[in-house]
Each structure stands twice: as structure tokens, then as C-alpha cells.
């Protein structure tokens, strides 16, 4: 199909359909229906700085309004070998944002010839999110170890950020931060810190409807990165107590008629598939 405009096409966001969508939504609203919503991750994500590095934790539930869309999604995304990012908010926005960040960080560190800094990731994220004025609905916790030590930042959808020793974001943030406020101490050991993050995420899983399923942890130190998927599964599916199937013979058979169908082979043709 040919386009009769004389403008050269550009990339990026296209606002062509916004008016049409607004009209469609208004029409649906008149009839009493509502337009579908973007799938959110309705999350609890948390981060903590301990003696040797950073621990990031997240739950694994993705919700579509009131229905669980994904019972085991990955919310801790890779950005650089020693930098990981947890994403909350609209699932697609968080996913695409972190993937773009990962590519940009790789290109930047190839260009400078140095390993990336966590502050650089945060700066690029906040500049991009501010440019889109909060329409990209992703809140992120960026944590990692670089030449300046272990750092933890949280970035909000409108572009503001915080640098703190412990952070939580998402719908279960209030439950998780209460656990942190109670038991956080600076310079904790790794096992104690892992237990604390696990407890905070579990508090979010139990007290918030938007979070659930398992706890994922990511322990980043200067030497190693441990991505512990499914570190804890506080919510197990219940076991059925007995079998509820009907025994064969429960329904009595009254009559039985057998009609054999005789089929003859009329025509046989072979079609060879192009498998190369």
C-alpha cells in the first residue's frame, strides 16, 4: 500500500493512533465496558547493601488487574556483569527499559574501555524516564559493585532517584520496608543479609495481594554474582487429600450396539516436504 505523505518516516514512538484510541475508549465506556489495562508486575522488590556487596530480592508474580498472569516471572534483570536491576510497575516497560539499558551500558563501556559504573546506569535511566514524563511506568532498583564499591539506587517512573543502603519498591514496598527498618544493621554478614532480604520479600508476598509465589535473590560481590532463582518458596500449592475420580462401573450400562465401519483405500498420494 502506498503512502501519499511526503514526509520521510522517523523511528521512535508514533502517536498516530492516540486519537482513535481515545474515541474507542469513550465508546466502550458508554456501553459500560472498560479498555484493557497493561499488565503490571504488582511487585515487592528490595535491595540491601551488606559487608561485601549488594543483595537484590524480588517476588515472582505478574498480575493483570485482579488475575495472576505469570506465577514465576523473572524480575531481576541483567544490566552488566556486576550490575543487576529489579523492575516493578508495567511489566513490558520494565523489561524493555532494562534491556535498552543493558545494551547502552555495553556500548558505553566498550567506548570508554572501562567497566561500567552503577551511577552511569542510574543517570541514563533517570534521564530517559524524565524525558517520557512518567508515561513509561517502570520503577527500578539498580544495584551493583563497581570501582567505587557497592551501590544501590532506586529510580521512580517520573525520573527521581534515591541512593540508600536499603530500598524497597512496588506495591508490597510498605510491608518489605517495615522488615528492613526493624532489622537492618550496617555491615551485615552474607547469610544474615540473605535471610533479611528473604524475610522482607516474604512479608510483601503475604501482606500484599499483588505479590506472590517465590523469592528470587541476587547476591553481587566484587568477586562473584549468585543469581538464586527460587531461593525460597513460602507459598506451596496445597496437596489433595484423596482422589475424587469416579470408579469404573459407577454408571450402569443399559444397552450396547456395535456398528463396524468398513473403509476402502481409494487413492494414495505422497507429497515430499522441502525440509532444507
Amino acid at each position: 500500500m502506498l503512502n501519499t505523505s511526503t514526509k520521510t518516516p522517523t523511528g521512535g514512538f508514533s502517536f498516530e493512533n492516540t486519537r482513535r484510541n481515545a474515541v474507542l475508549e469513550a465508546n466502550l465506556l458508554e456501553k459500560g465496558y472498560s479498555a484493557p489495562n497493561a499488565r503490571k508486575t504488582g511487585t515487592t522488590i528490595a535491595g540491601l547493601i551488606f559487608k561485601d556487596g549488594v543483595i537484590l530480592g524480588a517476588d515472582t508474580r505478574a498480575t493483570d488487574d485482579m488475575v495472576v498472569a505469570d506465577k514465576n516471572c523473572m524480575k531481576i534483570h541483567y544490566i552488566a556483569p556486576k550490575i543487576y536491576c529489579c523492575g516493578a510497575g508495567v511489566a513490558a516497560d520494565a523489561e524493555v527499559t532494562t534491556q535498552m539499558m543493558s545494551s547502552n551500558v555495553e556500548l558505553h563501556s566498550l567506548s570508554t574501555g572501562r567497566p561500567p559504573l552503577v551511577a552511569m546506569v542510574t543517570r541514563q535511566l533517570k534521564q530517559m524516564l524524565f524525558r517520557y514524563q512518567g508515561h513509561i511506568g517502570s520503577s527500578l532498583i539498580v544495584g551493583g559493585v563497581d570501582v567505587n564499591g557497592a551501590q544501590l539506587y532506586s529510580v521512580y517512573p517520573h525520573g527521581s532517584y534515591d541512593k540508600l543502603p536499603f530500598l524497597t519498591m512496588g506495591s508490597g514496598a510498605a510491608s518489605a520496608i517495615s522488615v528492613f527498618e526493624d532489622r537492618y544493621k550496617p555491615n551485615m554478614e552474607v547469610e544474615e543479609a540473605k535471610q533479611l532480604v528473604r524475610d522482607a520479600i516474604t512479608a510483601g508476598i503475604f501482606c500484599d495481594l499483588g505479590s506472590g509465589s517465590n523469592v528470587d535473590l541476587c547476591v553481587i560481590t566484587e568477586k562473584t554474582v549468585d543469581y538464586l532463582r527460587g531461593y525460597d518458596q513460602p507459598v506451596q500449592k496445597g496437596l489433595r487429600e484423596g482422589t475424587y475420580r469416579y470408579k469404573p462401573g459407577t454408571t450402569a450400562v443399559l444397552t450396547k450396539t456395535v456398528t463396524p465401519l468398513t473403509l476402502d483405500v481409494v487413492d494414495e498420494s505422497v507429497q515430499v516436504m522441502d525440509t532444507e
Partner: protein
Amino acid sequence: MNTRGLRSQLKDSVPVTGLCPQAGPYGVQDSLRRGFSSVKNELLPSHPLELSEKNFQLNQDKMNFNTLRNIQGLHAPLKLQMEYRAARQIQRLPFLPSSNLALDTLRGADDTIGFEDILNDPIQSEMMGDPHIMTEYKLGVL
């Protein structure tokens, strides 16, 4: 939402020709090529981000050139803008997608990835402009 309001955005930036009435060669709405006109469609943007995204690159450049002028003097932005103009002229035929490699390198966009590289890549667009119309428009014959 930007608290400076829509009017200041319209006033300070380079005029957005996409939103103005699509005047044809005689200064009136060209119904054959651009369809029916609607006051609402032409005066107001359909999305809060539409104007700011259209003008984003221009505003960035303006800001950077102003800073450069304040630091190094007038010659610096003049020389750079001359290079930009030269690079902007390196294009394929009007209806074919151009890579704009020289322009991207000058801007520093050759080692960053943004939404303009991922979404709506013109190279992968399903629609193509009519070659005759686009060439005529480029040559000023239309």
C-alpha cells in the same frame, strides 16, 4: 506533566509543521492528499508527549549549542552546525530509507540505543512513500 504549559511549549520551540494546517500549494487545505481538516486535530496534540517528542532533538541541540557558545565562543556552534548541514545532505533517494550514518556519528548517537532504534524502524516499515510524489516534492515540482 510539564508545568510550563502547552502554550509555552508551542511558543519556544521550532514550529511544528506536522500540527499546523497542512497547506497545499495554494495555502488552503489540500483535501486530496491530506484528507479532511479538523480544528482540534491541528491545534492540539493528541498526547501530552507528542509535542515534546517531536521537538526533543531540536531542543537538545539548541541547549547544547548555547552552552557551547557560552563556553567556547560563537565559532564553535557555527562550525558544528556547518558540519551538521553537510552531513544532513548525505541521503539516498527520497523514498528510500537512509542510514544517516554521518549525522548519527556527529551527534554521538552511533553508540547509544534509544526507542527510535527499536520502535518503528523506518527500514522495516511496511508502507513506502510513492516514489514519484516524494521525488517531485523534493525537487519542488509538486
